[in-house]
């Protein structure tokens, strides 16, 4: 089942790369979001997908059962999601200010100024 998710990751990265190479700043942000989605999935996949029960210690037990999923990639992805939000917000505000002061949404105009 990794094969299909690997393809999804590839498509997300390809979409991200394509959008990052555009001149429009809005597309740049979209590309960034694609990139973070793809990376989150990649990190998540780095743990094994063979065990699927949520990583909790059952009531009345001291040690988690052998069937629980790898908790570390989950913690990493959780962290990255929230940071990703901060980055996206900052980037969005940055392009807004860029548009405000330059009057264009074309990145190539930036070089001439």
């Amino acid at each position, binding site marked *: 089942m990794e094969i299909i998710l690997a393809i999804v990751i590839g498509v997300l990265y390809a979409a991200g790369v394509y959008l990052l190479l555009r001149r429009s700043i809005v597309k740049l942000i979209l590309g960034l979001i694609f990139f973070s989605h793809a990376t989150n999935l990649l990190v998540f996949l780095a743990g094994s997908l063979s065990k699927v029960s949520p990583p*909790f210690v059952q009531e009345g037990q001291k040690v988690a059962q052998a069937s629980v999923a790898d908790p570390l990639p989950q913690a990493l992805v959780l962290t990255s999601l*929230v940071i990703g939000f901060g980055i996206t917000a900052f980037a969005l505000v940055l392009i807004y200010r860029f548009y405000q002061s330059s009057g264009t949404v074309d990145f190539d105009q930036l070089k001439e100024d």
Partner: protein
Amino acid sequence: MSNPYSNIFRIAATKLRPLLFILSLIVLYRGHQQPGGGFIGGLMAASAYILYALAFNSAEARRKLPLSTSALLGTGLAVILVSGLLSVLAGEPFMTGMWTTLHLPFGQELHLGTPVLFDAGVYLAVIGVLLTIMFDIIDIE
């Protein structure tokens, strides 16, 4: 500014705000044992106020907050630091988890530890960050 949103949205926002807020506290509290925690709780609590700000305006939402957004941020970070430093006071390395059990009347037990305090700090900081960002963006005219 005239009201661009429907009354239904406003009423929903008004009713949902305390509900979501209380829910976020529950999620925060039980986060160490069951799904939830500081991040999720913070996101929920912030959503409550963002919803309110969208329905009315950010000034109104700010007034409903017990603290200013920047104070929330600062308090959050301070709580995180304090939870880490408590163990230093006890002679352990920074951020060693310390636990204690309070015996409440009626045989109840309350299991408290510095990681829970840490989570509360994360909760406050996340609210502070999200609301600072969102309110500022809503303020763009």
